[in-house]
């Protein structure tokens, strides 16, 4: 684990990035593509008092129209393709896709007729969070990484649709 000072520095930078670039509100939409319901439980706990995601400026939104970040869980079931793509397309740019948990990273299910086996097969994933399930702490860390990625994608914060497409090749 890194020394505390670096941590504090990292946290400060994270908060700064969120507050300056996203008006203190980065909105997250979750997408279950066939998880076993445990990743969902951990994501729900992010808003629980112990982790309180809101203190960092993150919020959950049920509408992908308002979302900046897509948190994908599960091995990307083939029957879910359409919904996954629709959700991604419904999000305005700039947007990041965060693959969450071992299933979404290709760990549990191999590629077969049921599943793509990897969130990256369908969506342009920007950040990968390992873990089965990733604990809320790991999720917090991953969201911090995602914010950095989002900030990279939007130099000078020009909200141009092309920049989303530019960020989509990962």
């Amino acid at each position, binding site marked *: 684990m890194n020394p505390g000072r670096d941590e504090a520095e990292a946290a400060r930078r994270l908060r700064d990035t969120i507050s300056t670039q996203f008006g203190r509100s980065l909105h997250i939409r979750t997408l279950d593509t066939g998880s076993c319901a445990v990743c*969902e439980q951990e994501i729900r706990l992010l808003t629980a008092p112990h982790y309180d995601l809101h203190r960092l400026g993150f919020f959950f939104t049920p509408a992908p129209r308002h979302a900046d970040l897509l948190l994908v869980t599960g091995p990307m079931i083939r029957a879910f393709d359409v919904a996954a793509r629709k959700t991604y397309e419904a999000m305005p740019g700039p947007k990041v896709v965060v693959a969450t948990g071992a299933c979404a990273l290709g760990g549990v299910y191999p590629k077969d007729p049921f599943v793509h086996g990897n969130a990256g097969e369908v969506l342009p994933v920007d950040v990968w969070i390992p873990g089965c399930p990733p604990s809320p702490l790991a999720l917090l860390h991953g969201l911090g990484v995602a914010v950095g990625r989002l900030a990279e994608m939007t130099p000078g914060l020009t909200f141009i649709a092309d920049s989303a497409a530019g960020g989509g090749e990962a």
Partner: protein
Amino acid sequence: MTPTHLPIPASLSRAAATSEQLVERLNALGGLEVRDGGATRGTVTVRTLGETLEAATHVVAGAPGARLADMFAGGSGPTGSGVSPGDRVSPRASRAADNGGDAPTLRLVWALESGYLLTETEIHGDRYPALSDIAPAAFVEECEIYEQFGIRPATGKPLNRLMLPPHAGPDFPRMRHRPARPPEEVHAPHTVGGQAFEFPFGPVRQVGVESLYYGLVTSGEEVVDVYLFTWHKHRGLEWRLRGTTPREGLFFAERAEGLSAVAVGWAVAAAAEAALGSTPPPAAARTRAVALELERLYNHAAAMAALCQATGLTVGQSAAEIALERLLRVNAASFGHRYLFGVIEPGGASRAPDAEVLRRDLPAAYGELRRAADALLSTNSFVDRLEACGILTAEQARRLGLVGPVARATGMATDSRLNAGGPPDGNPYAGHLVTAVTADGGDALARFQVMLGEAAESVRLIGEFLDAGTEAKSAPLPPGGGRGLGWAESSRGEVLAWVALDQDGRITRARLRPGSVRNWRGFDDACRSQNVFTDIPIIEASFWLTAAGLAR
């Protein structure tokens, strides 16, 4: 809330009599009790003829206290024709094996007052008697068996779409490959006629919930019917388990319904143990029980948080989530995993709880839960929303074969921990007083109260098991093949698993039936019972089911 104490010894003797009587009556119909290697261990197995299947089902369904727990089909014949010693099948080859030529065997698992009764019937042709007319609970399984095996009830009633996605072609993997008939011929037409319309909801729904499609058919005010689609969560787990060893298979089984990982894992492990005639060491069995009770405990806390969220009581949600997080941390501190994955292994348990941590932290965490619950029960705005919401009657629960808190909230004292079938050594609950907490409202409040009562029981049982001693120990599985039935009581109700192992100890057919599979069927009826839209999240939270468990 009326706790029903069912001392195990008494029920044991009574149930044994029932089971014997049933077997006698089935034998009169041409049934044959199987005791040799072809039997499913862990249960009484009766082979019935295809011609008398209907009559046999009538006999068992009519027996007092009998409940259809599961129905499934298998590719191999009842005498183990699919398994021959020395015929080593590679996992992949076995998985892809086309069993289309074999006559599938239909197995019905009946839960009696104590112990399970399994009937098996070889089905020739593609039709079998419509058992859902006798035991309505069989309907889901009829749909599933059609999708996986291509055989269907003889009445030709339309079936629901369950797991096969609408676009699944003939080469979409199934348990038994057989070109699919045009689904519109078989699947119930999904239409809404007259003056109602379908309010579409999902599959991508609120944040942090599973993907699930509800079609709420409504006349504008009342909920007329609910269409429930989960095929976009079907991961083909039973298909995946073929050709794996029980240990490999357990890894997937735990992920069938991650919030019941211990219960599903235990059921599969117990089934494999039963198939091979081994029993886990008693201390390891107690380890399993501690893990199971911890799992039930955190699920009840999570259900409480979900209920608060559904009723819009954010402070209550926070209080419940504090309790939930503390319980999960107790799990992590004692077993090394917040959701207790990897605790169960075939033959025993791979990890032992840190008894000291449990004794120290669990009471505090449970105290948090208890205080939050007390505060909730004295909050009128919360209790009023739960009262008379999503009512199910005991009759409905019995007909639909509901399990777990949903069934117990209607007054049915069904709890598979009370079921003393199987080897007594492998049952850590034998010798402990297990209380089936019941309530008689049948509504969301009753379910909530049942959950609270069970949470208290879980804490007590954990203490007793720790006092009796726990250990991470496994009895190695003996070589050979066989069939076994295993079960465990998850927070959602009874989990059943049935496995057939070949001589190499590899799974040729595994059946997983998490509690969610049964209870989602009650969800439709609960939604219809004169509820309005805004009650549905409350009903969903009070059932606390997973789509993952239903779709597997």
